[in-house]
């Protein structure tokens, strides 16, 4: 009896171990000698696949709301047309996505297709040779002409194209609760002074003027971006960011910091904003419940709110662009935004780059464009039109903007982008003066660029 128990236990254990060691269908194209994840797997079969074995492509995205459904539709269509390819879609959380992607690319164990926000971080990957050059395929049949020029420009480095603009174009606007404004006799401000009056009025009736996801920090960065842009024009930031004669301690920056701290001190932001996480919807909840009247956020919020709270979207949601600051250099029509953000790139280590690129093409073909429009996205293709009044307004603001300033933490190289977030958080928390906060950013810039 004892022997029976012993042998059967051993047999079960052996079976389990063998099962765990079976080759998982991961598409890692690890060149010999590179460090891969420490799983116990037999080495990958050589490149020539038998017709029975499928090519596996992994796709990473950071979409929420209805976005993942749309992506899955496109993936399913692609797989239906290409039965020899299996696509694994993995949704990632935005706030930790960069970390995960850095590690994956650095260890040469990346997904075949993944999204980035372009700008400095993408360029860093390009310089490290981790991204597949897509120029040839983009030029084929003039495919790149399908997209808005500004979108292509944002991912062209060293004369080559490294990504495809896919998910949406977005700008940062101030969303507001139409009912609260109507109840209190407020109208959309066209100047900053008018906005200040609105803030004062809202405070007097006990409604928090702005909801803000301070814990996530990047929502605060919208304010910094707009203030600097309105005060010093786009040149102020560009000169400092490209180290062509500007510094982050120039007057527009310091003044912007001052104005932010004035706003915080006058109670323009909901109490406790420092601990609210945009990602888990804490700031949106305040808008829905009427505790806060406004929130500055990217226009992807339209799509998010549409999916999350259709009633609010239908009856109460409105937005307006960041108002003009009268008497300053900036053009009030400039916007902070990103054309085609969540651009998809192909990893250099991908085993099937051509198939990966075709997959991306499926994600932005006409059917996909229509599906994205239906869920409230502005797609970065030239042919995009929409009947939705909200999206029409966003499109108008986007098209008429003389300059679209890319989000600072995506424009700048990663360590400087992080510094801009740290500076912004210090400003909003009132833990540092603008001089000190921007001084730290300037110090980091000098260290990063060497000048």
């Amino acid at each position, binding site marked *: 009896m004892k022997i029976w128990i012993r042998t059967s236990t051993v047999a079960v254990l052996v079976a389990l171990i063998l099962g765990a060691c079976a080759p998982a269908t991961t598409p890692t194209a690890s060149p010999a000698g590179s460090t891969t994840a*420490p799983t116990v797997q037999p080495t990958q079969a050589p490149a020539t696949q038998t017709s029975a074995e499928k090519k596996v492509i992994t796709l990473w995205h950071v979409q929420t709301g209805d976005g993942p459904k749309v992506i899955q539709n496109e993936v399913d269509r692609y797989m239906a047309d290409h039965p020899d390819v299996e696509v694994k879609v993995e949704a990632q959380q935005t*706030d930790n996505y*960069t*970390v995960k992607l*850095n*590690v994956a*690319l*650095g260890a040469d164990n990346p997904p075949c297709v993944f999204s980035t926000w372009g700008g400095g971080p993408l360029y*860093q*990957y390009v*310089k*490290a*040779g*981790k991204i597949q050059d897509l120029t040839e395929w983009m030029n084929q049949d003039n495919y790149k002409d399908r997209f808005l020029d500004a979108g292509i420009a944002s991912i062209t480095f060293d004369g080559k194209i490294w990504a495809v603009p896919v998910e949406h174009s977005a700008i940062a606007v101030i969303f507001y609760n139409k009912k609260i404004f109507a109840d209190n006799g407020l109208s959309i401000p066209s100047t900053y002074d008018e906005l200040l009056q609105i803030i004062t009025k809202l405070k007097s009736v006990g409604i928090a003027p702005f909801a803000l996801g*301070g*814990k996530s*920090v990047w929502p605060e960065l919208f304010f910094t971006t707009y203030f600097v842009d309105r005060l010093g024009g786009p040149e102020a930031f560009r000169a400092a960011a490209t180290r062509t004669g500007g510094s982050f301690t120039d007057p527009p920056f310091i003044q912007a910091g001052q104005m932010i701290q004035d706003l915080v001190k006058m109670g323009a932001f909901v*109490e*406790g*904003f*420092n*601990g*609210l*996480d945009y990602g*888990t919807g*804490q700031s949106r*909840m*305040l808008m829905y*419940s009427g*505790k806060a009247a406004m929130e500055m956020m990217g226009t992807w919020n339209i799509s998010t709110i549409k999916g999350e709270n259709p009633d609010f979207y239908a009856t109460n949601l409105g937005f307006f662009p960041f108002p003009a600051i009268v008497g300053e250099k900036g053009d009030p029509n400039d916007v902070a935004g990103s054309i085609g953000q969540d651009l998809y790139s192909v990893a250099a280590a991908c085993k099937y780059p051509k198939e990966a690129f075709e997959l991306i093409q499926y994600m932005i073909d006409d059917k996909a464009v229509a599906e994205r429009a239906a869920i409230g996205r502005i797609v970065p293709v030239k042919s995009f039109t929409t009947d939705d009044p909200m999206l029409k307004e966003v499109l108008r603001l986007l098209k008429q903007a003389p300059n679209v300033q890319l989000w600072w933490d995506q424009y700048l190289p*990663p*360590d400087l982008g*992080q*510094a801009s977030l*740290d500076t912004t*958080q*210090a400003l909003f*928390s009132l*833990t*540092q003066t603008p001089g000190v906060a921007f001084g730290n950013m300037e110090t980091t810039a000098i260290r990063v660029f060497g000048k």
Partner: protein
Amino acid sequence: MGVEMVERARVGKAPKRGTAYQREYSLCAVVFLLPMIFFLVVFVVWPILSSAQMSLFAWNGVSPTRQYVGFQNWSRLIGDRIFWSAFRNNLTVLVLSIVIQIPMGMALAVLVSNGGRWMVVFKTVCFLPMLMSSVAIGILFKYVYDPYFGVLTASLKAVGLSPLVRNWLGDPQIALYSVIAVVCWQFIPFYMILFEAGIAGIPVELHEAAIIDGATENQYFWHITLPLLWGTTRAAVSLALFGSLTYFDLVWVMTTGGPSGATELMATYMVKKAFLSTEVGYGSTVAFAMFLIVVLISGIAFFVTRRKESSPWSS
């Protein structure tokens, strides 16, 4: 000689030095230890040495090349205000963890050891926090701590204690303590189990003898149980020490080291530098500095609290 060998084995002594049997015995021990040594070297020793080496370079984590910078990272670390502020936060976590978690763990262990059948249920319920993933706990408590809709705020308001409501995770003054509260919630069960095991090792006859001699439960606990748990306590303190100095999970999920560094720990700072700012060289410097600090403090703690391990039955 054979009889002597058996005699020594019976009382638990190692074979006599220098004998052939001893060599065989030692060889046997080494062979059995080899797999463990392998894993230890590959997953512990080598990464530590590797991070020490990486601290002499500047690397962004993706580039195929890296740049030698000598001790530049180290001099930067010494002057880094944020790192030392993080270290002070770690010390706060350390002190509060030891002062709160260990006594409460012990109290629960005493309660659970003395109880009856219901204690089994109680024990299981108490242990649940340890089984949950840190990320799940972090997100859960982020909602609990929401200053508008969270359970904590709502409860305080419901009993009329509204003035006590704070910006739990957003106020730089109290954010760290809010997080520490959740850490305690997560780890007290662990200490409960640890001490329960320790208490179970105390012979029951001691208790009976003490009661017969007229000792109260209170006296029994302070004068007999506690001293006999010295080894376990020491182990618990070391674990708390090590855990606090390298803590990461809940802080990262709940506050990411914010607001503005109020809850920054050495580990979160390291991750920010190595992966978000893509300065892997400097991040490795922080990591290796953490290692040195942990070794130093643990070493001091261990040395200060050393005492010859003695059991009531040793001869």
